[in-house]
């Protein structure tokens, strides 16, 4: 409960309960739960059989997960042997998106800095807690969506399979990239049919890779420096002379967003923000030690020094056609308890102040809220009462003893 950076968890009647309006899908709670009782949604690998033609869209983070002798190209090939019909070139999509970011920043005339939209946790955080920054979020598709667009384009050009449809499955480093079942209509990633975690594919991929005789070693690297997106600083790689910053970690990101709101960073052009400290290679669904994975990504992005240049004229044409533009701009999230008038909000604040004045402020959490502030907030919303605080009610202690099955003593932590 206390690990939640947005105070979204409450314990009621001995069970954890989530305030959906506060949750940003960061996955911190899942990482620390000692009973592994928090299970994020992601399609099991076996569920994928229902799709006809499967295209794997791997996160760049996937390529840092395996022992160093396995190249990204071999991992791509392995994907096509464990059930996918094709694997998209995420490195190319990453490079394109980096180019599009630069283009968007150069054209944009509003307040700075612009904020990256590629970590869904960060976007949700801004929607819920920093709605005044919503127009600074770059409405450009992430590499996984652009990879799908590239595939679609290739199919429409190819005369052999003009209308061949496919289902794109994202191979995700974190639960936040999985479309929420309840939001299928709203989700920005509708062109992605589903998501499987890196963790679920790790064993089958490794089994296939290790069976390969050395003669099968991939001759030429085809995936370029776009793989840098797996680590912090990847998305801004095209920015060169523009001043920009990169921040990773949710509390670090929140501190930067506060500063952006105050106008402190207005001379910065771009802020790349990631919820996980260390970027996507440190996502909840990754397997490899973070530092090793980071090192491998650094080696991989340096493999090809002379990359074929991006076809800028072509990209600019795509850009103007809306190829990179998100179908839906992020919008401010609904506040907890729905919209309220200024008068209602002020009345609630008065109630909260009253409750706060009465609470002990030692943040013991026994009431089931992560601190006294949150309990006061819950009281002002009518979702809790002052007697939930053990300092006010002996009955609360009795209730806890009953729930946790204790005959005496204090409840466990």
């Amino acid at each position, binding site marked *: 409960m206390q690990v939640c950076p947005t105070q979204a968890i409450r314990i009621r009647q001995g069970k954890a309960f989530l305030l959906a309006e506060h949750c940003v899908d960061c996955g911190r709670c899942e990482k620390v739960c000692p009973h592994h009782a928090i299970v994020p949604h992601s399609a099991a690998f076996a569920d994928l059989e229902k799709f006809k033609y499967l295209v794997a869209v791997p996160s760049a983070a996937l390529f840092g997960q395996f022992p160093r002798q396995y190249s990204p190209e071999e991992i791509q090939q392995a994907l096509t042997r464990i059930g996918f019909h094709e694997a998209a070139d995420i490195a190319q999509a990453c490079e394109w998106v980096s180019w599009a970011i630069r283009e968007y920043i150069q054209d944009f005339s509003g307040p700075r800095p612009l904020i990256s939209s590629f970590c869904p946790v960060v976007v949700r955080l801004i929607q819920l*807690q920093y*709605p*005044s920054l919503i127009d600074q979020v770059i409405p450009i598709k992430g590499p996984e969506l652009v990879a799908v667009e590239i595939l679609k384009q290739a199919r429409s050009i190819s005369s052999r399979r003009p209308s061949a449809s496919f289902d794109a499955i994202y191979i995700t480093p974190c639960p936040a990239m999985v479309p929420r079942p309840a939001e299928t209509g709203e989700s920005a990633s509708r062109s992605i049919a589903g998501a499987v975690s890196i963790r679920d594919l790790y064993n089958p991929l490794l089994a296939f890779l290790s069976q390969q005789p050395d003669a099968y070693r991939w001759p030429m690297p085809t995936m370029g420096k776009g793989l840098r997106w797996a680590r912090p600083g990847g998305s801004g790689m095209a920015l060169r002379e523009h001043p920009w910053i990169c921040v990773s970690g949710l509390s670090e990101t929140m501190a930067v967003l506060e500063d952006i709101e105050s106008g402190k960073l207005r001379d910065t052009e771009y802020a790349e923000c990631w919820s996980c400290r260390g970027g996507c290679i440190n996502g909840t669904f990754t397997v490899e030690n973070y530092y090793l994975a980071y090192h491998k990504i650094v080696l991989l992005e340096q493999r090809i020094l002379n990359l074929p240049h991006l076809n800028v004229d072509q990209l600019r044409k795509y850009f103007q056609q809306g190829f990179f533009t998100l179908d839906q701009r992020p919008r401010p999230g609904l*506040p907890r308890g729905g919209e309220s008038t*200024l*008068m209602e909000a002020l009345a609630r*604040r008065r109630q909260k102040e009253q409750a706060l004045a009465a609470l002990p402020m030692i943040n013991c959490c026994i009431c089931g809220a992560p601190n006294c502030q949150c309990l006061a907030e819950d009281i002002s919303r009518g979702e809790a009462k002052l007697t939930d605080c053990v300092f006010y009610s002996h009955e609360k202690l009795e209730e806890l003893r009953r729930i946790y099955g204790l005959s005496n003593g204090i409840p466990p932590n």
Partner: protein
Amino acid sequence: MENPPGRRDEPAAGPLLEQSYKIEGGNFIAAGNAATRLKDLLKEIKIPADVIRRAAICSFEAEMNVVMYAHRGTITLEVYPAEVVLRVDDEGQGIPDIVTAMQEGYSTATEAMREYGFGAGMGLPNMKKNSDRFEIHSVIGQGTHLRISISLK
């Protein structure tokens, strides 16, 4: 803080909410704290995002000016049904020539202040730009008073 009952129809009643924050002159480490707390309060009472954005910029600039040029000061938030008002009162050197000080790029910041990244001469013009009504009074050797109003439409 509350409207007394029975006086609802009378105009010019007190603010619905009033909250003051102290600012310490010369303390660049704590600079920005008052503006951040003020902003958090505005978020808590669900003021529209655009108003928060403008109020956050104004209060931060105002706080920086107090930190840079005054001995001490307060920033007071007043919320009315139709507007949000920031009042900034400081005890300090005052502004000799307000017309010049309101020009973009004009700054009397010292080298030391600029090393902290402040003093670009954008403070007052930026506050004016982000407010609907901006009043400034200054007495040399005593201090400066700002009243920044942002309309809630």
